[in-house]
């Protein structure tokens, strides 16, 4: 029983710590995401009509951009809907 309680307490503290860690960095994460968006646009902007970097560079970078491509597609989908993200992050109530 005490071991079970100790385990439970440890788990609760771990959760508390994770909540705090994420709370302490949520807004910075958001800014990082914005920077990633800009980076993805600079590299993959050709898809949306922005001038691309020279093709050899773009092709060379492409294999490293797999994750960015996935994120870009998700972001394209969510870009028309920014209110929810902001409200989830800014503490208004």
């Amino acid at each position: 029983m005490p071991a079970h309680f100790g385990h439970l307490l440890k788990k609760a503290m771990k959760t508390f710590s994770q909540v705090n860690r994420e709370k302490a960095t949520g807004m910075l994460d958001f800014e990082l995401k914005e920077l990633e968006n800009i980076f993805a646009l600079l590299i993959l902007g050709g898809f949306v009509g922005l001038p691309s970097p020279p093709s050899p560079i773009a092709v060379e970078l492409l294999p490293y951009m797999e994750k960015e491509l996935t994120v870009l597609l998700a972001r394209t989908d969510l870009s028309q809907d920014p209110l929810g993200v902001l409200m989830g992050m800014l503490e208004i109530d």
Partner: protein
Amino acid sequence: MTTLIALVALAIYLAFYFIYGRVIRDKLLKSKEAPEAPSKRLSDGVDYVPTSKYVLFGHHFASIAGAGPITGPAMAVAWGWLPGLLWIWLGNIFLGAIHDYLALAASVRYDGRSVQFVAQDLIGKKAGKTFGWFTLFLCILVVAAFGDIVAGQLAADGRVFFAFVFFCIAAVIAGFAMYRSKLGLGWGSLIGLVLIILAFWLGDMLPVKWSKDTYFLIIFVYIVLASTLPVNLLLQPRDYLSSFFLYFGLIVGGISALISVAPLNSIPAFTTFSAKLIGPAGALQPSPFWPTVPLIIACGALSGFHALVASGTSSKQLREEKDALFVGYGAMLVEGFLSTLVIIAIAGFGAAALGDKLMSTAAIPRFVQSFAQMVTTNLPFLPMSFMTLFAAVWVSTFALTTLDTTNRLGRYLVQEMAEPLKEKNPGAFKFFSNKWVASIIIAFVGIFLARSGGYTVLWPAFSGANQLLASVVMLTVAVWVKKKLNPKYVASVMIPAVFLWVTVTAALIWYEIVIIPVFFVDMAKTLSVITGAVVGLITLFMLILNFIMISSFLKNWKVNAQAA
């Protein structure tokens, strides 16, 4: 008695969580058979990340519990402690928690998109646009209502101002330690906590006695600066550190309420159906409990903001849809418990703290003194002077956080809404999209209204806008249930949705007819007339949008019925 009320609240919330909440989850949503959650299906390690429900609960609760669930109940005791308490309990379990839960679940089924998107898809583009406008008005009214509340609290207790200033400095130093030094989050947090204690001590040592007008000016400058500064400098570490106030306040308040045996005799259980509650200072009008209660108690029972919070980040991170019950429904119930504590503190300890002046004291100082008295009586190792300072800084910090984050959001909205001007009028677009200009516009209108209106007028306007947003969400969710889920259970959403819509619409019409004309009694008072005109127009515009929205809803509902 306080123990009994706290236990009854816990029993009701737990019973409804396990019975009603589970029925909604298993019969209405059928979450166990739901498709895989977007956090797994669309997992990208960035936006969509499967997260433990306990962690999400922590995030969600911290985002929804601010100064709102404290302010409304502290005002509502004018009707007596029982009507407010009943609205908090019943409103919470049948409206607020269902609203938050279903908004979160709908967002999960829509791949994590916001409830605004869901409304646009189910009710039409007008509903989506209505959301944008409601939110912009809400931002202005939040700045106005909270601006007055904070200025009043700062003027009432001279220790709070420097305690808050040093708290902000503590946040900047802690932020530096956390993000820019090798100390990391743990040591940074510890430094922050030590500095908070120091901030309290310094605030106590350096009391100032400035007028409310001076504080309005200070708040104006603060929110413009704080909402335009880089987030990592002040906003992020301050929000992080302020969450410790919430934990501490809830823990000591909860323990005190549960172990106390004090009777709830500071105020009667019921005073009158039409207590003088809403109106300009000095001209409060008799406000009938129905329909005006949602204009007073917002966040503790129901809040439209929560739907936006729920569908922002939480829905993208829910590991499984069934976790939405714990995160959405559960967090709202805990917020209801916070509001219950506010009523218990005032009804049980208000007289001991403030004597005959209890009901003539403004809502926030009323809560601050009563809460401190409750904690000190039951946990005597926490002295009264510390607890009053703590409670005042707690509420003021939350209100100030709300102020500058709202101003930041309002700034984004002004910039966004200026977009159509880009080609038609590039000069005007450049002007409105400037972050300082956009920020000053919201702050100026908000603080102007706060100075000339007062929270007894502005809080109900803000609360009404908030509840109107909630009713739009409830109607959206009703269409969702009917169209995409189980029409058999549509009544469980439709009945509260219609009740809420009728109540809030009636309340806002009452506000427009009874409260706004009071500003025009003496036309020589220019500021009062301008305030009445601005608040009246905002409320009127929201009512028009509300009726446009409801006509779209009815059209959609009819089409669906025919299709079915």
